[in-house]
């Protein structure tokens, strides 16, 4: 890693770390109902929303009621997003006269955006009207993120409450998340993004005359270029903050209008990390033991940082085949060097690799380069980070609750190893919690491996693969990992806008989201009903370096054991073959 890249990486990490405490404690105040500025000034708006929605603010919900409210709200979201896409031709704010989206693509997109995945089998600027982008997709960007955070807060309540059968009110958690956290942040980021040149307009596309005429694939002369515009900045802000990742443009944050400058790139990266990382601290505040929050952050970081370093390093080394062809891959003042295939020259390899690792560790899924063009091993890192269960920071809310499921498994094994029935934060981990945590550990793997197996066996599945050999296998594996992990980034190189992939990925996304969320709410309910066991000398401390390393090992070993065969047949063999060649 060159000095420049090193400084950029360290600077990014330090800024993220500095945000953790202030922003984490702000969110804790919001969720615990303590005054924190915005929730004092805007309290009348919050009350007004409850009044018109007939929400009884003080009324707690059992975990089942909470889960039903969450599911109904999300299913409604799917229906609305589907309907808007199908009807967009007749709806307003459609200056480019976009036709209705196809049924399977609409269904896929509807599930994708409500599950916080933002897998996009369409190209935004030539498929969606402004109305669809704003009222279908952006709205889901807010509420799907808020859903994840609400579930996390309900789970945290399970740890802090004693012998109660409620876990909070879903609607209240949603309103507070959107009103006090997501909306204010989005406004700030959107305004800054506009300053960097990201468009924010209802005007139709601009037309530019080319300085040099060119020919299209049919041999026709082209001398004009259409520059797609729209309400981009507002959508990009929430896309990054809420770990959504669905771009306004097909090229996502590699597009010059979606991510024009190195500063916008830095800010978007920051927005990706901000909430997932800070939530660890929020967790610590809420359970009244900040060390527990730092411990989870540390466990995530000791997986994240080596992955980050490794990915940058591999990309920096460049492609050995290009070396043989005499291509200059060295770093100079005029070029970033390394493997520049599929990357934007304004970002270079380091910022592309940081982005790739961040967007997959956090279940964000926006991209500023093509993961498909990474070297096999550096391409494996984003893939594997998704396969670890999106718990290394992970999506807003869902990453942390996924990690807590791993904590439950880890304290269970560790508890046995020290001869005590396991407990975490004073709550006994018993049969019911183990059942639910096991489901959380099992389901994502199922919805990655089985659809991948079906895809590589069937004609319709194989039809989408554009690269032969192990790389093609990696593409399919990545697609379903991204869907089940609710990441949404694409490896690329695969034509996913077919009925087969639209339906299969939608199923993976749906179960990857809700089959995790519901067991976690069940755990919240069960924990909430329990007593809090005071800790003694015999209690296993869960904030020590030992436990942090153990937790990270559990995550790594499970991820490695499940995906080793698949990875061996994809990126690993591709790397070995490349080295051998």
């Amino acid at each position, binding site marked *: 890693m060159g000095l420049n890249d090193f400084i950029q990486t360290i600077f990014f990490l330090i800024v993220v770390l500095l945000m953790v405490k202030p922003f984490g404690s702000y969110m804790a105040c919001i969720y615990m109902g303590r005054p924190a500025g915005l929730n004092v000034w805007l309290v009348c708006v919050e009350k007004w929303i409850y009044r018109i929605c007939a929400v009884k603010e003080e009324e707690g919900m059992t975990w089942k009621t909470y889960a039903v409210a969450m599911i109904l709200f999300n299913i409604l979201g799917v229906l609305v997003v589907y309907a808007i896409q199908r009807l967009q031709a007749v709806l307003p704010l459609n200056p480019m006269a976009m036709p209705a989206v196809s049924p399977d693509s609409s269904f896929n997109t509807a599930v994708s955006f409500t599950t916080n995945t933002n897998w996009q089998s369409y190209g935004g600027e030539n498929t969606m009207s402004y109305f669809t982008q704003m009222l279908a997709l952006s709205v889901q960007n807010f509420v799907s993120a808020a859903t994840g955070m609400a579930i996390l807060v309900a789970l945290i309540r399970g740890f802090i409450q004693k012998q109660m059968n409620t876990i909070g009110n879903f609607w209240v958690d949603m309103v507070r998340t959107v009103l006090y956290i997501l909306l204010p942040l989005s406004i700030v980021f959107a305004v800054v993004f506009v300053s960097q040149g990201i468009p924010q307009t209802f005007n139709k596309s601009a037309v530019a005359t080319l300085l040099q005429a060119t020919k299209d694939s049919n041999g026709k002369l082209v001398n004009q270029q259409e520059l797609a515009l729209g309400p981009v900045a507002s959508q990009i802000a929430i896309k990054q903050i809420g770990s959504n990742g669905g771009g306004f443009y097909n090229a996502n944050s590699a597009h010059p209008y979606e991510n024009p400058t190195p500063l916008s790139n830095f800010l978007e990266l920051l927005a990706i990390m901000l909430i997932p990382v800070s939530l660890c601290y929020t967790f610590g505040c809420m359970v009244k033991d900040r060390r527990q929050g730092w411990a989870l952050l540390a466990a995530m970081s000791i997986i994240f940082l080596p992955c980050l370093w490794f990915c940058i390093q591999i990309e920096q080394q460049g492609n050995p085949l290009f070396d043989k062809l005499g291509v200059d891959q060295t770093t100079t003042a005029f070029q970033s060097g390394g493997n520049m295939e599929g990357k934007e020259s304004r970002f270079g390899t380091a910022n592309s690799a940081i982005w790739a690792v961040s967007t997959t560790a956090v279940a964000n899924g926006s991209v500023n380069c093509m993961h498909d063009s990474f070297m096999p091993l550096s391409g494996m890192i984003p893939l594997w980070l998704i396969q670890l269960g999106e718990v290394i920071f992970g999506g807003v809310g869902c990453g942390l609750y996924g990690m807590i499921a791993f904590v439950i*498994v880890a304290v*269970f*094994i*560790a*508890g*046995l*190893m*020290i*001869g*005590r*029935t396991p407990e975490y934060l004073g709550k006994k981990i*018993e*049969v019911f919690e*183990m059942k639910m945590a*096991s489901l959380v*550990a*099992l389901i994502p*793997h*199922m919805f990655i*491996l*089985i659809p*991948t*197996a*079906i895809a*590589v*066996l069937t004609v319709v599945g194989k039809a989408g693969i554009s690269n*032969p*050999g*192990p790389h*093609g*296998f990696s593409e399919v594996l990545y697609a379903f990992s991204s869907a089940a992990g609710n990441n949404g980034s694409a490896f690329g190189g695969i034509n996913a806008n077919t009925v087969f992939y639209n339906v299969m990925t939608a199923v993976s996304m749906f179960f990857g989201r809700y089959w995790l969320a519901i067991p976690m709410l069940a755990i919240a309910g069960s924990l909430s009903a329990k*007593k*809090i*066991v*005071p800790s*003694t*000398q*015999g*209690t*296993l*401390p869960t904030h*020590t370096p*030992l*436990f942090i390393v*153990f937790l990270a*090992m559990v995550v790594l*070993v499970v991820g490695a*054991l*499940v995906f*080793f*065969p*698949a990875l*061996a*047949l994809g990126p*690993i*063999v591709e790397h*070995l*073959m490349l*080295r*051998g060649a």
Partner: protein
Amino acid sequence: MKKTHSSMTSLFEPTILVPAMVESFKKLDPRHQFKNPVMFVVLVGSLLTTGLYVQALGWHGEAGASFILAISLWLWFTIVFANFAESMAEGRGKAQAESLRRARKDTPAKKMSKPTQGASFETVSATTLIKGDVVLVERGDYIPMDGEVVEGVASVDESAITGESAPVIRESGGDRSAVTGGTRVLSDWLIVRITANQGETFLDHMIAMVEGARRQKTPNEIALSILLVVFTIIFLLVTVTILPFSIFSVATAGKGAVITVTALVALLVCLIPTTIGGLLPAIGIAGMDRMIQANVIATSGRAVEAAGDVDVLLLDKTGTITLGNRQAVAFIPTQGVTTERLADAAQLSSLSDETPEGRSIVILAKEKYGIRERQTQELGARFIPFTAQTRMSGVDLGANRQIRKGAVEAIEGYVRKAGGIFPDDLKSSIETISKSGGTPLVVAEDKNVLGVIQLKDIVKGGIKERFAELRRMGIKTIMITGDNPLTAAAIAVEAGMDDFLAQATPETKLKLIRDMQTGGRLVAMTGDGTNDAPALAQADVALAMNTGTQAAKEAGNMVDLDSNPTKLIEVVKIGKQLLITRGSLTTFSIANDVSKYFAIIPAAFVGTYPALGALNVMHLATPQSAILSAVIFNALIIIFLIPLSLFGVPYRPVAASRLLRDNLLIYGAGGIITPFVGIKLIDMILVALHLV
């Protein structure tokens, strides 16, 4: 004293080993295997590969017949080895049950018409007795069933149950009224009311327990089973999807062959946690076995497991922390009275006092002041016994000399009534005694107070160290006593207890336990008296003394045959050991998978992608020897770990973090490294023997 049960049976005891071998083949019955999902998967895999072998013999096989046969055989061995572990654990229990069963002979019983001495009786078989019957047991008779003494005192030989050869006293009323069926009366006679029906007796419980017949899975065991099942399902998923991945890879690479079902089954069995899955039943049975060896009978495995979690331990002061009785250590006279006079009066008042305190006063007077014992009859003395109303005892020597001794308030009232005064200088002495943990006993003659006898509790030797050990385990100790808070505090400090409950009544004990439990604590308690029963029933882990009353034994969930209250420390250790063994072997089992992948994955795909040969870090000879070595290692490791599962991973009372670190290093890191070495060795042996 000889303990019959605590002798460790050797691992290679042929009387256990041989039947266990037979049993491990009988247990191949799918109905038995179905109870253990992990091993059931292995059974299905064995059947599948056996079928493939038959296919390879007759028609065109997917691989060489000898290779399939070798894999198939080792898969069968894997199940047999796991069965063998379970049979060994059961066999060791059965050997103990056998010795217990010998105690349960069909003895004749003298069934009485009514529960009074001299009532008529008829001789019937013990098996016909039911709850509520009353029997007479005379010298040399066996007690036919569990019961409670309603009349009589006798010495009883309980060695058949406890292994303790010294006879014990059993008497009606009080805390030594329970008798156990199968024990023998050595002297005198007892009238016993039967308290258990046939099949529900103590002995029956013990036999069922050691045989593992009524063993139910404990909550933790269930939770662990769930985790193991999930791992099994995940690895099933992993191996099943390898087949399509392989088909795709072969098609796209254009060379090699699709992975064989035999290799997939081998990989599956290697990946699923067969080590812990196979040894889990043995660990549970062996845990119970260790309890029996410690002479503790638990009514459920759940109680044993809960013992590992205890964080508060309530102990009765008397007999547990202190020697049973208080002893007189000093005579402190009031001003104007000589020590000799006080000692003389104290001795006179205690001559007929048969309580241990009374006897210790006589002994002290003799040892320190040379006052000989006198016969009460010669003095014409009349003994005034202690009553709860007067709270005094004493002696009347004729009409003009009345000596009384008793609690401070009682004597103060007594002398005031007689027109005397209570000397002020004595009050400071009394306070000093109380503060030091002693009990003051005031002596008065007529209306004059002579002085005070200092009675002191003697803390048992070595008890302080035991409590320090408990503290290191994270267990808080609380002393329960009827003493006043001052005395209690002094003794608690002397014995090194964390806290105490003074002036305890059954209600305050119960309340203390409930409060602790509401605060989330897991409470253990030992007790023997009937008044302990409510508290024992409330406690999470309740160890009743075998010498205690039937009510106490029924309220508890464990009975200590040695009647040693500090036995709870052993119980806690056994409980912890049980969990640690399970946890460590689970970690070991999963950690093993890493190296098995490095053996099998390159072997399975090297034909399709020769570059994957780079992952063969162990340099195993051939793809077939690699897969076979992994399977053989997986089977043999079960055999190697049988001793560990039977004897348990040792527990040391150190901080939780340190224990976790050490066990992770041994079973986690060890679990990753061991199979690399083991598989390589097996591969070398296979090559050397030209088996592959």
